[in-house]
């Protein structure tokens, strides 16, 4: 059993290979996923290993990728479809929203749709337009879907295994800014992580920091730096964006009394809105300060020359934490 120190994108590859090896019904499809191994190399080597029946380069059409996956999944395959960048997922929305999310419900479970739609997302790699958005919120609003976002190699491995094994459609979003940002030992043991629970990455008593995806990096760094100032932050990686495990979050806020939510997506109706609203609704009496959101602006993601202005950084997070702690 390998136990290598690998990057997140390698962990994605490892999970795919593991599950394809174990389960013949797992198949891959997407643009450039075959010979090229994906533009980020997430599927590298898999066509060679599992053949072009199971690793399919599709024609250039995202609606088709979504539609094919639905058809395959209804037949009991477990398609893992790649959208090359999340900014190109929109043509597939009709199949995701009207079909994938509903096939089980529509047929009272006669048919189901065990598919995974993977897409790299988020900014920070100086990519062209449409290659940097974070629109997880659009999927999270849709009942019948699961939305999952890993923030480390190990969680990418375990959550992707869980997503593939899950009997329902999962939107699996990979924060590409941290695809290769760090390495971690990941044991290829086939152990999946749960899809219904947030991960508490750091315990703390003064304030709860809530985030996911690439921003976990800045969030953890902020917590570390704040600790040096004597501020104790709990850090929660939401990871399973939808359905959302509010219990873990509410319990943490009940303990700390304060929270800051950090995400890269635009603020208006970003996933932070739901978290803050639910905290207000169910945890109002616990709150010693307003739930604050540190997010991207409600603007279009700027072209890369200005993109760093759009994305929250540790200074922003620490400012928000201090401000929240000063609230009386």
């Amino acid at each position, binding site marked *: 059993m390998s136990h290598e120190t690998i990057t997140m994108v390698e962990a994605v590859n490892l999970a795919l290979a593991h599950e394809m090896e174990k389960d013949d019904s797992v*198949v891959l499809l997407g643009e450039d996923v075959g010979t090229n191994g994906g533009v980020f190399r997430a599927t590298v080597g898999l066509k060679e290993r599992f053949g072009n*029946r*199971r690793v*399919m380069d*599709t*024609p250039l*059409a995202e*609606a*088709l990728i*979504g*539609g*094919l*996956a*639905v*058809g*395959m*999944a*209804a*037949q*009991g*395959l477990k*398609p893992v479809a790649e959208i090359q960048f999340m900014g190109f997922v929109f*043509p597939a929305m*009709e*199949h995701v929203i*009207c*079909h994938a999310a509903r096939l*089980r*419900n*529509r*047929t*009272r*479970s*006669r*048919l*189901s749709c065990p598919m995974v739609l993977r897409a790299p997302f988020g900014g920070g790699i100086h990519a062209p337009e449409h290659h940097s958005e974070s629109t997880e919120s659009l999927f999270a609003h849709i*009942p*019948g879907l*699961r939305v999952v976002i890993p923030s480390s190699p190990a969680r990418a491995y375990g959550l992707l295994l869980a997503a593939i094994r*899950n*009997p*329902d459609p999962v939107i699996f979003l990979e924060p590409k800014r941290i695809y290769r940002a760090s390495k971690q030992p990941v044991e290829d043991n086939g152990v999946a992580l749960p899809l*219904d629970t947030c991960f508490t990455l750091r315990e703390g008593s003064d304030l709860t920091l809530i985030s996911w995806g690439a921003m976990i990096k800045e969030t953890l760094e902020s917590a570390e730096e704040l600790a040096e100032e004597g501020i104790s932050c709990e850090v929660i990686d939401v990871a399973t964006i939808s*359905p*959302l*495990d*509010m*219990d873990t979050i509410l319990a943490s806020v009940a303990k700390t009394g304060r929270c800051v939510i950090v995400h890269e997506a635009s603020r208006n109706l970003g996933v932070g809105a739901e978290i803050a609203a639910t905290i207000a609704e169910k945890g109002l009496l616990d709150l010693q300060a307003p739930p604050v959101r540190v997010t991207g602006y409600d603007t279009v993601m700027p072209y890369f020359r200005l993109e760093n202005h759009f994305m929250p950084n540790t200074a922003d997070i620490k400012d928000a934490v201090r401000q929240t702690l000063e609230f009386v």
Partner: protein
Amino acid sequence: MDTVFEGQILFRQYLTAQNEVSTELPEWARSADWLTTCYRNMVLARTMDNKAIALQRTGQLGTYASLLGSEAIDVPVGLLMQKEDVLIPYYRNHAIQMLRGTPIEEILLYWGGDERGNASPGMGEDFPNAVPIATQAMHACGVASAFRIRGESRVALTLCGDGATSKGDFLEALNVAGAWQLPVVFVVNNNQWAISVPRNLQSGAPTLAQKAIGAGIRGEQVDGNDVIAMREALQLALDRARDGKGPTLIEAISYRLSDHTTADDATRYRDNDELKAAWELEPIKRLRTYLHSNGWWDETQETLWQEEVNCMVQSAVDAYLDTPPQPIESIFDHLYAELPESLREQRDWAMVKAMKGGSHHES
């Protein structure tokens, strides 16, 4: 300049509306067997259709899409597909669903606004009706891909209307079917109208079958009021697909003799003379005339069969009307394989509200 591609579209017809044989008949059409079976089912389909409209008019069914004028397309499809094939229908294919094993009461249940209408075990692996236009064409390619991946000799057959051929989904599906040589058959029910939009506004192409040419696959045009032509075209397409010889697009020329749905009023946009002319071509009369002229069917049989069919349909209607609604928690229980913890509270509320005295109690 070199010619780098040449293509053509043929029109298949054997039996004209005037009961003339326009092309030499295939052997099987010289005996009663299949044709009378086909006829019986067409009559059954139309009877079911009439009843459904009547139910809608009396408030006992929701908006309903009539199959009137599609009988010679759908009944052959239903008879010729193998059980292990998969149907990926649109919303006008009740006759096929019935022939493949869905009880009429469950078809009615669907149109009565109840998801259990898509849950009949009789449906096997068939897809439920596709409401978003043309999306089913892609699902068919996904299903066909699954057959190919697993090396199975099965065929995915999907239908859509003329309007649907304008939507990207249909065109992307044709293209992948060609690129991957999938075991799929596309049947376009070209009934000349997409709600109020006539065929000529949908596309500048003189035939819809030639969309196959754009995708590099086989295409043909067929008289969709002629069951003999439909059987020939379908059998060839199904056999080819099953034998790994690739996909086919069949454009079946028909006419939507009904309003688009019961929510529509076609007199707002459609000329009555056109409708009258279309009735002259309609499939049931055409087949009956042929059967009569061969001595394979007579008035007595007609009367007896119509009575039998009326009974079948009526007892299905009774069963449908007797079906109590689903409990409210059903809307939670099929959303995911397992109810997420976060939805438990909402499910509980919903049940409480539906109880006597609750805000959503329906007596």
